[in-house]
Protein backbone atom coordinates (compact mmCIF):
# COMPACT_ATOMS: atom_id res chain seq x y z
CA UNK A 1 0.00 0.00 0.00
CA UNK A 2 1.24 3.46 -0.84
CA UNK A 3 1.49 6.43 1.54
CA UNK A 4 -1.53 8.75 1.31
CA UNK A 5 0.59 11.78 2.01
CA UNK A 6 3.68 11.60 -0.21
CA UNK A 7 2.20 9.05 -2.64
CA UNK A 8 5.66 7.53 -3.01
CA UNK A 9 6.86 5.37 -0.16
CA UNK A 10 5.18 2.22 1.13
CA UNK A 11 2.77 2.89 3.96
CA UNK A 12 3.62 1.23 7.26
CA UNK A 13 1.42 3.26 9.60
CA UNK A 14 -2.28 2.50 9.27
CA UNK A 15 -4.81 4.66 11.02
CA UNK A 16 -8.53 4.18 11.16
CA UNK A 17 -11.22 6.08 12.97
CA UNK A 18 -14.97 5.87 13.11
CA UNK A 19 -16.73 9.21 12.97
CA UNK A 20 -20.50 9.22 13.04
CA UNK A 21 -20.53 5.63 11.89
CA UNK A 22 -18.25 6.32 8.92
CA UNK A 23 -14.88 4.65 8.72
CA UNK A 24 -12.00 6.90 7.75
CA UNK A 25 -8.68 5.30 6.89
CA UNK A 26 -5.29 6.83 6.36
CA UNK A 27 -2.12 4.99 5.43
CA UNK A 28 1.21 6.70 5.91
CA UNK A 29 4.86 5.88 5.46
CA UNK A 30 7.14 6.14 8.49
CA UNK A 31 8.70 9.54 7.61
CA UNK A 32 5.32 11.12 6.76
CA UNK A 33 3.77 9.76 9.96
CA UNK A 34 6.65 11.17 11.95
CA UNK A 35 6.53 14.49 10.17
CA UNK A 36 2.83 14.82 10.86
CA UNK A 37 3.22 13.86 14.49
CA UNK A 38 1.05 10.76 14.22
CA UNK A 39 3.26 8.69 16.51
CA UNK A 40 3.01 11.36 19.18
CA UNK A 41 -0.71 12.07 19.35
CA UNK A 42 -0.30 14.47 22.24
CA UNK A 43 -3.76 15.58 21.28
CA UNK A 44 -3.22 17.11 17.90
CA UNK A 45 -2.91 14.31 15.34
CA UNK A 46 -6.58 13.70 14.77
CA UNK A 47 -6.97 16.74 12.51
CA UNK A 48 -4.53 15.16 10.15
CA UNK A 49 -6.28 11.84 10.23
CA UNK A 50 -9.63 13.19 9.24
CA UNK A 51 -8.18 15.88 7.01
CA UNK A 52 -6.36 13.36 4.84
CA UNK A 53 -9.18 10.85 4.86
CA UNK A 54 -11.53 13.59 3.79
CA UNK A 55 -9.33 14.83 0.99
CA UNK A 56 -9.48 11.33 -0.43
CA UNK A 57 -13.22 11.58 -0.66
CA UNK A 58 -13.35 15.01 -2.22
CA UNK A 59 -14.87 15.01 -5.66
CA UNK A 60 -12.61 16.40 -8.34
CA UNK A 61 -15.16 18.38 -10.27
CA UNK A 62 -12.73 20.88 -11.68
CA UNK A 63 -9.20 19.63 -11.26
CA UNK A 64 -7.76 22.83 -12.71
CA UNK A 65 -9.69 25.08 -10.32
CA UNK A 66 -7.51 27.63 -8.61
CA UNK A 67 -8.08 30.17 -5.83
CA UNK A 68 -7.82 33.70 -7.25
CA UNK A 69 -6.50 35.10 -3.97
CA UNK A 70 -3.71 32.68 -3.07
CA UNK A 71 -3.20 30.45 -6.12
CA UNK A 72 -4.01 27.23 -4.28
CA UNK A 73 -5.35 24.43 -6.50
CA UNK A 74 -7.67 21.52 -5.91
CA UNK A 75 -4.73 19.21 -6.48
CA UNK A 76 -2.92 20.94 -3.59
CA UNK A 77 -5.93 20.22 -1.42
CA UNK A 78 -5.94 16.55 -2.36
CA UNK A 79 -2.29 16.36 -1.40
CA UNK A 80 -2.44 18.13 1.96
CA UNK A 81 -6.05 17.94 3.13
CA UNK A 82 -5.73 21.66 3.91
CA UNK A 83 -6.86 24.80 2.09
CA UNK A 84 -4.65 27.73 1.10
CA UNK A 85 -6.54 30.74 2.47
CA UNK A 86 -10.03 31.80 3.56
CA UNK A 87 -10.98 32.65 -0.04
CA UNK A 88 -10.33 29.02 -1.04
CA UNK A 89 -13.57 28.18 0.75
CA UNK A 90 -15.39 30.12 -1.99
CA UNK A 91 -13.20 28.89 -4.82
CA UNK A 92 -13.69 25.21 -3.98
CA UNK A 93 -17.17 25.46 -2.51
CA UNK A 94 -18.70 22.97 -4.95
CA UNK A 95 -16.29 20.15 -4.09
CA UNK A 96 -16.33 20.82 -0.36
CA UNK A 97 -20.08 20.65 0.20
CA UNK A 98 -20.54 16.88 0.25
CA UNK A 99 -17.35 16.45 2.18
CA UNK A 100 -18.52 18.78 4.95
CA UNK A 101 -21.84 16.99 5.12
CA UNK A 102 -20.10 13.66 5.65
CA UNK A 103 -17.74 15.10 8.21
CA UNK A 104 -19.96 17.30 10.35
CA UNK A 105 -23.32 17.40 12.09
CA UNK A 106 -24.76 19.92 9.66
CA UNK A 107 -23.82 21.90 6.56
CA UNK A 108 -24.11 25.42 7.93
CA UNK A 109 -22.78 27.36 10.88
CA UNK A 110 -25.08 27.96 13.85
CA UNK A 111 -22.48 29.02 16.42
CA UNK A 112 -20.79 32.26 17.37
CA UNK A 113 -20.85 35.21 14.97
CA UNK A 114 -18.24 37.98 15.29
CA UNK A 115 -19.76 41.36 16.16
CA UNK A 116 -18.53 42.84 12.87
CA UNK A 117 -20.24 40.13 10.85
CA UNK A 118 -23.38 40.45 12.94
CA UNK A 119 -24.16 43.84 11.35
CA UNK A 120 -23.73 42.41 7.86
CA UNK A 121 -25.81 39.38 8.75
CA UNK A 122 -28.64 41.59 10.00
CA UNK A 123 -28.56 43.60 6.76
CA UNK A 124 -28.56 40.41 4.70
CA UNK A 125 -31.52 39.10 6.66
CA UNK A 126 -33.47 42.31 6.14
CA UNK A 127 -32.73 42.30 2.39
CA UNK A 128 -33.87 38.69 2.15
CA UNK A 129 -37.10 39.57 3.95
CA UNK A 130 -37.79 42.59 1.73
CA UNK A 131 -37.09 40.55 -1.42
CA UNK A 132 -39.85 38.18 -0.42
CA UNK A 133 -42.20 41.10 0.18
CA UNK A 134 -41.27 42.50 -3.23
CA UNK A 135 -42.14 39.26 -4.96
CA UNK A 136 -45.43 39.15 -3.16
CA UNK A 137 -46.24 42.75 -4.10
CA UNK A 138 -45.47 42.06 -7.76
CA UNK A 139 -47.59 38.90 -7.68
CA UNK A 140 -50.48 40.88 -6.27
CA UNK A 141 -49.86 43.63 -8.84
CA UNK A 142 -49.31 46.24 -6.11
CA UNK A 143 -46.72 48.07 -8.18
CA UNK A 144 -46.52 51.19 -6.05
CA UNK A 145 -45.63 49.12 -2.98
CA UNK A 146 -43.17 47.13 -5.06
CA UNK A 147 -41.34 50.26 -6.17
CA UNK A 148 -41.04 51.44 -2.57
CA UNK A 149 -39.71 48.07 -1.38
CA UNK A 150 -37.23 48.01 -4.27
CA UNK A 151 -35.88 51.39 -3.18
CA UNK A 152 -35.48 50.13 0.40
CA UNK A 153 -33.57 47.09 -0.81
CA UNK A 154 -31.24 49.30 -2.89
CA UNK A 155 -30.55 51.46 0.13
CA UNK A 156 -29.69 48.44 2.29
CA UNK A 157 -27.46 47.03 -0.43
CA UNK A 158 -25.53 50.29 -0.52
CA UNK A 159 -25.08 50.06 3.25
CA UNK A 160 -23.90 46.48 2.92
CA UNK A 161 -21.30 47.44 0.33
CA UNK A 162 -20.10 50.27 2.54
CA UNK A 163 -19.77 47.91 5.53
CA UNK A 164 -17.72 45.48 3.44
CA UNK A 165 -15.35 48.19 2.19
CA UNK A 166 -14.93 49.55 5.73
CA UNK A 167 -13.96 46.06 6.89
CA UNK A 168 -11.37 45.83 4.10
CA UNK A 169 -9.98 49.28 4.88
CA UNK A 170 -9.74 48.49 8.59
CA UNK A 171 -7.46 45.63 7.70
Amino acid at each position, binding site marked *: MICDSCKQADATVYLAKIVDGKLLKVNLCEPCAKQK*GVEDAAGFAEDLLIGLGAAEEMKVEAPGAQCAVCGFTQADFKKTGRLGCSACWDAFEAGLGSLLKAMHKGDHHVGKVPAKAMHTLALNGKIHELSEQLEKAVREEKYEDAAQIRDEIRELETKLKKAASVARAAE
Partner: protein
Amino acid sequence: MKIDDLLKSPSEWVKADGPNSKIVMSSRVRLARNIRDHPFPGWAKKPERQKLLELIQPVVEALPEMADHFGDSMDNITAIHKQVLVERHLISREHAAKNVGSGVVINGRETISVMVNEEDHLRMQAIKSGLQLKTIFKIIDRVDTELEEHLDFAFSPKLGYLTACPTNVGTGMRGSAMVHLPGMVLSDQINQVVQAVNKLGLAVRGLYGEGTEALGNVFQVSNQTSLGEKEMEVIERLNKVMLQIIEHEENARITLLEKKPKLVYDQIGRAYGILSNAHTISSKEALNLLSLVRMGVDLDIFPATARAMVDEMFILSQPAHVQRAAARKLTAEERDILRAELIRVQLASISKPNLNDRPAVDGGRVEPE
Protein backbone atom coordinates in the same frame (compact mmCIF):
# COMPACT_ATOMS: atom_id res chain seq x y z
CA MET B 1 8.24 37.34 31.45
CA LYS B 2 11.20 35.10 30.53
CA ILE B 3 10.62 31.46 29.68
CA ASP B 4 12.53 30.31 32.76
CA ASP B 5 10.19 32.36 34.97
CA LEU B 6 7.21 30.80 33.21
CA LEU B 7 8.49 27.24 33.61
CA LYS B 8 9.76 27.65 37.18
CA SER B 9 6.54 26.39 38.74
CA PRO B 10 4.23 23.71 37.35
CA SER B 11 1.17 24.70 35.31
CA GLU B 12 -1.85 25.66 37.36
CA TRP B 13 -3.89 22.81 35.86
CA VAL B 14 -1.53 20.24 37.39
CA LYS B 15 -2.67 21.21 40.90
CA ALA B 16 -5.70 18.89 40.64
CA ASP B 17 -8.03 21.22 42.52
CA GLY B 18 -10.77 21.39 39.88
CA PRO B 19 -14.13 19.58 40.04
CA ASN B 20 -13.89 15.81 39.50
CA SER B 21 -10.12 16.07 39.28
CA LYS B 22 -9.70 12.56 40.72
CA ILE B 23 -10.63 11.16 37.34
CA VAL B 24 -10.54 14.15 34.99
CA MET B 25 -7.00 15.49 35.12
CA SER B 26 -7.65 18.53 32.94
CA SER B 27 -10.08 20.07 30.46
CA ARG B 28 -9.12 22.15 27.49
CA VAL B 29 -10.97 24.16 24.84
CA ARG B 30 -9.28 25.57 21.77
CA LEU B 31 -10.51 27.88 19.03
CA ALA B 32 -9.02 28.17 15.53
CA ARG B 33 -9.13 31.58 13.82
CA ASN B 34 -7.66 33.05 10.65
CA ILE B 35 -7.15 36.47 9.14
CA ARG B 36 -9.34 37.12 6.10
CA ASP B 37 -7.78 36.68 2.64
CA HIS B 38 -4.27 35.92 3.88
CA PRO B 39 -2.73 32.55 3.04
CA PHE B 40 -2.93 30.03 5.89
CA PRO B 41 0.45 29.32 7.56
CA GLY B 42 0.93 26.02 5.72
CA TRP B 43 0.60 27.74 2.34
CA ALA B 44 2.05 31.19 3.13
CA LYS B 45 5.61 32.10 2.16
CA LYS B 46 8.01 33.00 4.96
CA PRO B 47 7.70 36.81 4.57
CA GLU B 48 3.90 36.52 4.64
CA ARG B 49 4.03 34.46 7.81
CA GLN B 50 6.39 36.94 9.42
CA LYS B 51 4.15 39.85 8.44
CA LEU B 52 1.14 38.21 10.05
CA LEU B 53 3.09 37.24 13.14
CA GLU B 54 4.09 40.90 13.53
CA LEU B 55 0.43 41.86 13.19
CA ILE B 56 -1.04 39.23 15.52
CA GLN B 57 1.54 38.75 18.29
CA PRO B 58 1.32 42.33 19.73
CA VAL B 59 -2.49 42.20 19.72
CA VAL B 60 -2.44 38.95 21.70
CA GLU B 61 0.19 40.25 24.12
CA ALA B 62 -1.93 43.34 24.80
CA LEU B 63 -4.94 41.29 25.98
CA PRO B 64 -5.95 41.98 29.61
CA GLU B 65 -5.70 38.20 30.18
CA MET B 66 -2.07 38.41 29.13
CA ALA B 67 -1.06 41.18 31.57
CA ASP B 68 1.54 38.73 32.90
CA HIS B 69 2.82 36.62 30.02
CA PHE B 70 5.60 34.92 28.16
CA GLY B 71 5.62 35.60 24.44
CA ASP B 72 8.21 34.96 21.79
CA SER B 73 8.86 33.92 18.24
CA MET B 74 9.40 30.15 17.93
CA ASP B 75 12.93 30.57 16.55
CA ASN B 76 13.95 32.21 19.85
CA ILE B 77 12.86 29.24 21.95
CA THR B 78 15.29 26.35 22.51
CA ALA B 79 14.37 22.81 21.51
CA ILE B 80 14.22 21.70 25.17
CA HIS B 81 11.94 24.57 26.15
CA LYS B 82 9.66 23.83 23.21
CA GLN B 83 9.44 20.21 24.29
CA VAL B 84 8.67 21.26 27.88
CA LEU B 85 5.79 23.36 26.52
CA VAL B 86 4.53 20.31 24.57
CA GLU B 87 4.69 18.15 27.69
CA ARG B 88 2.65 20.77 29.54
CA HIS B 89 0.08 20.76 26.70
CA LEU B 90 0.66 24.47 26.06
CA ILE B 91 1.73 24.04 22.43
CA SER B 92 1.27 21.22 19.92
CA ARG B 93 4.03 18.96 18.68
CA GLU B 94 3.59 20.51 15.24
CA HIS B 95 4.06 23.98 16.67
CA ALA B 96 7.24 22.90 18.47
CA ALA B 97 8.70 22.16 15.03
CA LYS B 98 8.08 25.73 13.84
CA ASN B 99 10.69 28.46 13.77
CA VAL B 100 10.78 31.84 12.02
CA GLY B 101 7.31 33.24 11.36
CA SER B 102 5.50 31.45 14.18
CA GLY B 103 5.04 32.53 17.77
CA VAL B 104 3.43 31.75 21.08
CA VAL B 105 1.95 33.75 23.95
CA ILE B 106 1.22 32.08 27.31
CA ASN B 107 -0.15 33.72 30.45
CA GLY B 108 1.83 33.37 33.69
CA ARG B 109 -0.59 30.86 35.21
CA GLU B 110 -0.37 28.76 32.04
CA THR B 111 -4.15 28.63 31.76
CA ILE B 112 -4.29 30.43 28.40
CA SER B 113 -1.98 29.94 25.44
CA VAL B 114 -2.16 31.29 21.93
CA MET B 115 -0.17 29.75 19.09
CA VAL B 116 0.40 32.09 16.17
CA ASN B 117 0.84 30.51 12.73
CA GLU B 118 0.40 26.90 13.70
CA GLU B 119 -1.95 25.26 11.19
CA ASP B 120 -4.22 28.31 11.45
CA HIS B 121 -3.18 31.91 12.03
CA LEU B 122 -4.42 31.65 15.61
CA ARG B 123 -4.95 28.64 17.82
CA MET B 124 -6.00 29.80 21.25
CA GLN B 125 -6.67 27.50 24.16
CA ALA B 126 -7.63 27.58 27.81
CA ILE B 127 -6.78 24.65 30.09
CA LYS B 128 -7.75 24.00 33.70
CA SER B 129 -7.73 21.21 36.24
CA GLY B 130 -10.70 18.85 36.47
CA LEU B 131 -13.93 18.80 34.50
CA GLN B 132 -14.97 22.40 33.86
CA LEU B 133 -15.44 22.71 30.13
CA LYS B 134 -18.09 25.45 30.39
CA THR B 135 -15.92 27.70 32.51
CA ILE B 136 -13.00 27.14 30.19
CA PHE B 137 -15.06 27.82 27.09
CA LYS B 138 -16.16 31.15 28.58
CA ILE B 139 -12.54 32.13 29.23
CA ILE B 140 -11.40 31.42 25.68
CA ASP B 141 -14.60 32.84 24.17
CA ARG B 142 -13.83 36.15 25.86
CA VAL B 143 -10.28 36.14 24.56
CA ASP B 144 -11.70 35.55 21.06
CA THR B 145 -14.20 38.40 21.41
CA GLU B 146 -11.44 40.76 22.53
CA LEU B 147 -9.21 39.72 19.64
CA GLU B 148 -11.89 40.16 16.98
CA GLU B 149 -12.05 43.88 17.80
CA HIS B 150 -8.54 44.24 16.47
CA LEU B 151 -8.24 41.45 13.90
CA ASP B 152 -10.40 40.79 10.84
CA PHE B 153 -11.23 37.12 11.27
CA ALA B 154 -12.19 35.07 8.22
CA PHE B 155 -15.88 34.33 8.71
CA SER B 156 -18.64 33.28 6.36
CA PRO B 157 -22.31 33.49 7.39
CA LYS B 158 -22.84 30.00 5.97
CA LEU B 159 -19.70 28.16 7.07
CA GLY B 160 -18.69 30.14 10.16
CA TYR B 161 -15.02 30.61 10.99
CA LEU B 162 -12.93 29.54 8.01
CA THR B 163 -10.00 27.27 8.85
CA ALA B 164 -7.17 25.57 6.99
CA CYS B 165 -8.61 22.11 7.63
CA PRO B 166 -12.25 21.27 6.83
CA THR B 167 -12.49 19.38 10.13
CA ASN B 168 -12.36 22.66 12.06
CA VAL B 169 -14.58 24.93 9.98
CA GLY B 170 -17.64 26.41 11.70
CA THR B 171 -16.95 27.05 15.35
CA GLY B 172 -13.23 26.24 15.04
CA MET B 173 -13.68 24.72 18.45
CA ARG B 174 -12.32 21.56 19.95
CA GLY B 175 -13.04 20.71 23.56
CA SER B 176 -11.16 17.90 25.23
CA ALA B 177 -10.72 16.29 28.60
CA MET B 178 -7.78 14.25 29.84
CA VAL B 179 -9.10 11.34 31.89
CA HIS B 180 -7.34 8.85 34.14
CA LEU B 181 -9.01 5.45 33.75
CA PRO B 182 -6.94 2.75 35.48
CA GLY B 183 -10.06 0.95 36.72
CA MET B 184 -11.40 0.41 33.23
CA VAL B 185 -8.02 -0.64 31.89
CA LEU B 186 -7.46 -3.15 34.73
CA SER B 187 -10.93 -4.61 34.25
CA ASP B 188 -10.58 -4.78 30.44
CA GLN B 189 -13.55 -2.48 29.83
CA ILE B 190 -11.65 0.29 28.14
CA ASN B 191 -12.16 -0.90 24.55
CA GLN B 192 -15.93 -0.97 24.99
CA VAL B 193 -15.88 2.57 26.32
CA VAL B 194 -13.69 3.77 23.46
CA GLN B 195 -16.08 2.25 20.93
CA ALA B 196 -19.16 3.67 22.62
CA VAL B 197 -17.64 7.14 22.76
CA ASN B 198 -16.52 6.91 19.11
CA LYS B 199 -20.09 6.18 18.09
CA LEU B 200 -21.12 9.49 19.63
CA GLY B 201 -18.81 11.30 17.24
CA LEU B 202 -16.21 11.88 19.93
CA ALA B 203 -12.61 10.74 19.67
CA VAL B 204 -10.66 8.88 22.33
CA ARG B 205 -6.94 8.81 22.11
CA GLY B 206 -4.11 7.80 24.36
CA LEU B 207 -2.05 10.53 25.91
CA TYR B 208 1.11 9.49 24.14
CA GLY B 209 0.32 7.29 21.19
CA GLU B 210 -2.51 5.97 19.12
CA GLY B 211 -4.06 2.72 20.27
CA THR B 212 -6.13 2.05 23.29
CA GLU B 213 -3.55 1.11 25.90
CA ALA B 214 -2.58 4.62 26.76
CA LEU B 215 0.48 5.45 28.80
CA GLY B 216 -0.32 6.04 32.43
CA ASN B 217 -3.92 4.98 31.72
CA VAL B 218 -4.58 8.53 30.59
CA PHE B 219 -6.94 9.14 27.66
CA GLN B 220 -8.14 12.20 25.85
CA VAL B 221 -11.76 12.57 24.84
CA SER B 222 -12.64 15.31 22.36
CA ASN B 223 -15.35 16.42 19.94
CA GLN B 224 -14.78 15.73 16.26
CA THR B 225 -17.27 18.00 14.55
CA SER B 226 -17.39 21.78 14.40
CA LEU B 227 -20.12 22.61 11.89
CA GLY B 228 -23.88 22.55 12.44
CA GLU B 229 -23.87 22.73 16.23
CA LYS B 230 -23.58 25.61 18.67
CA GLU B 231 -20.47 25.79 20.83
CA MET B 232 -22.41 25.26 24.05
CA GLU B 233 -24.24 22.25 22.60
CA VAL B 234 -20.92 20.58 21.86
CA ILE B 235 -19.56 21.48 25.30
CA GLU B 236 -22.65 20.12 26.99
CA ARG B 237 -22.54 16.87 25.01
CA LEU B 238 -18.90 16.44 25.90
CA ASN B 239 -19.62 17.23 29.53
CA LYS B 240 -22.43 14.69 29.65
CA VAL B 241 -20.24 11.96 28.17
CA MET B 242 -17.47 12.83 30.62
CA LEU B 243 -19.83 12.44 33.57
CA GLN B 244 -20.81 9.02 32.26
CA ILE B 245 -17.18 8.03 31.85
CA ILE B 246 -16.52 9.13 35.44
CA GLU B 247 -19.40 6.98 36.65
CA HIS B 248 -18.17 3.96 34.68
CA GLU B 249 -14.66 4.37 36.02
CA GLU B 250 -15.93 4.62 39.60
CA ASN B 251 -18.04 1.51 39.12
CA ALA B 252 -15.14 -0.36 37.56
CA ARG B 253 -13.01 0.44 40.61
CA ILE B 254 -15.74 -0.64 43.04
CA THR B 255 -16.23 -3.92 41.18
CA LEU B 256 -12.49 -4.56 41.04
CA LEU B 257 -12.17 -4.02 44.79
CA GLU B 258 -15.07 -6.35 45.45
CA LYS B 259 -14.04 -9.12 43.09
CA LYS B 260 -10.27 -8.88 42.89
CA PRO B 261 -9.03 -6.81 45.83
CA LYS B 262 -5.70 -8.64 45.90
CA LEU B 263 -5.04 -7.82 42.27
CA VAL B 264 -5.64 -4.14 42.95
CA TYR B 265 -3.49 -4.08 46.13
CA ASP B 266 -0.77 -6.05 44.41
CA GLN B 267 -0.61 -3.63 41.47
CA ILE B 268 -0.55 -0.56 43.70
CA GLY B 269 1.92 -2.08 46.16
CA ARG B 270 4.29 -3.13 43.39
CA ALA B 271 4.08 0.26 41.74
CA TYR B 272 5.04 1.93 45.01
CA GLY B 273 7.80 -0.62 45.55
CA ILE B 274 9.40 -0.11 42.16
CA LEU B 275 9.10 3.67 42.12
CA SER B 276 10.62 4.03 45.58
CA ASN B 277 13.49 1.66 44.83
CA ALA B 278 14.29 2.03 41.13
CA HIS B 279 17.60 3.54 40.07
CA THR B 280 16.81 3.78 36.39
CA ILE B 281 13.38 4.07 34.83
CA SER B 282 11.95 5.00 31.43
CA SER B 283 9.24 7.67 31.20
CA LYS B 284 6.82 5.03 29.93
CA GLU B 285 7.31 2.75 32.94
CA ALA B 286 7.25 5.73 35.29
CA LEU B 287 3.91 6.95 33.93
CA ASN B 288 2.31 3.52 34.12
CA LEU B 289 3.40 3.05 37.74
CA LEU B 290 2.56 6.61 38.79
CA SER B 291 -0.93 5.95 37.44
CA LEU B 292 -1.34 3.08 39.91
CA VAL B 293 -0.07 5.19 42.79
CA ARG B 294 -2.53 7.89 41.73
CA MET B 295 -5.36 5.36 41.92
CA GLY B 296 -3.99 4.36 45.33
CA VAL B 297 -4.50 7.95 46.48
CA ASP B 298 -8.09 7.88 45.17
CA LEU B 299 -8.67 4.67 47.16
CA ASP B 300 -7.22 6.16 50.39
CA ILE B 301 -4.30 3.75 50.30
CA PHE B 302 -2.02 6.78 50.27
CA PRO B 303 -2.71 10.11 52.01
CA ALA B 304 -4.67 12.66 50.00
CA THR B 305 -1.73 15.04 50.23
CA ALA B 306 0.19 12.72 47.89
CA ARG B 307 -2.08 13.55 44.96
CA ALA B 308 -0.45 16.86 44.10
CA MET B 309 2.97 15.22 44.15
CA VAL B 310 1.89 12.33 41.90
CA ASP B 311 0.26 14.68 39.40
CA GLU B 312 3.36 16.84 39.34
CA MET B 313 5.52 13.77 38.74
CA PHE B 314 3.30 12.86 35.77
CA ILE B 315 4.67 15.96 34.09
CA LEU B 316 8.10 16.24 35.70
CA SER B 317 9.08 12.69 34.75
CA GLN B 318 8.68 13.36 31.04
CA PRO B 319 11.87 13.58 28.98
CA ALA B 320 12.20 17.33 28.44
CA HIS B 321 11.28 18.10 32.04
CA VAL B 322 13.94 15.65 33.30
CA GLN B 323 16.43 17.17 30.88
CA ARG B 324 15.57 20.63 32.16
CA ALA B 325 16.15 19.52 35.77
CA ALA B 326 19.76 18.69 34.88
CA ALA B 327 22.34 21.38 34.36
CA ARG B 328 23.88 19.67 31.34
CA LYS B 329 22.81 17.68 28.30
CA LEU B 330 21.85 14.11 29.25
CA THR B 331 21.85 10.88 27.27
CA ALA B 332 18.68 8.74 27.37
CA GLU B 333 20.34 6.45 29.95
CA GLU B 334 21.32 9.39 32.13
CA ARG B 335 17.78 10.72 31.91
CA ASP B 336 16.38 7.39 33.12
CA ILE B 337 18.76 7.51 36.11
CA LEU B 338 17.87 11.10 36.99
CA ARG B 339 14.14 10.37 36.55
CA ALA B 340 14.35 7.42 38.98
CA GLU B 341 16.15 9.66 41.46
CA LEU B 342 13.59 12.48 41.18
CA ILE B 343 10.74 10.04 41.77
CA ARG B 344 12.52 8.17 44.62
CA VAL B 345 13.05 11.43 46.51
CA GLN B 346 9.42 12.42 46.08
CA LEU B 347 8.03 9.01 47.08
CA ALA B 348 10.12 9.00 50.25
CA SER B 349 7.81 11.74 51.53
CA ILE B 350 4.71 9.55 51.43
CA SER B 351 4.16 6.67 53.82
CA LYS B 352 4.05 3.01 52.75
CA PRO B 353 0.72 1.88 51.30
CA ASN B 354 -1.83 1.10 53.96
CA LEU B 355 -3.22 -2.15 52.61
CA ASN B 356 -4.11 -3.96 55.83
CA ASP B 357 -7.45 -2.31 56.35
CA ARG B 358 -9.79 -2.48 53.44
CA PRO B 359 -10.05 1.07 52.16
CA ALA B 360 -13.39 2.74 51.90
CA VAL B 361 -14.47 3.17 48.31
CA ASP B 362 -15.37 6.74 47.62
CA GLY B 363 -15.38 8.06 44.12
CA GLY B 364 -15.76 11.59 45.43
CA ARG B 365 -17.83 12.68 42.48
CA VAL B 366 -19.31 16.17 42.63
CA GLU B 367 -22.42 17.36 40.90
CA PRO B 368 -22.07 18.56 37.29
CA GLU B 369 -21.42 22.25 36.89
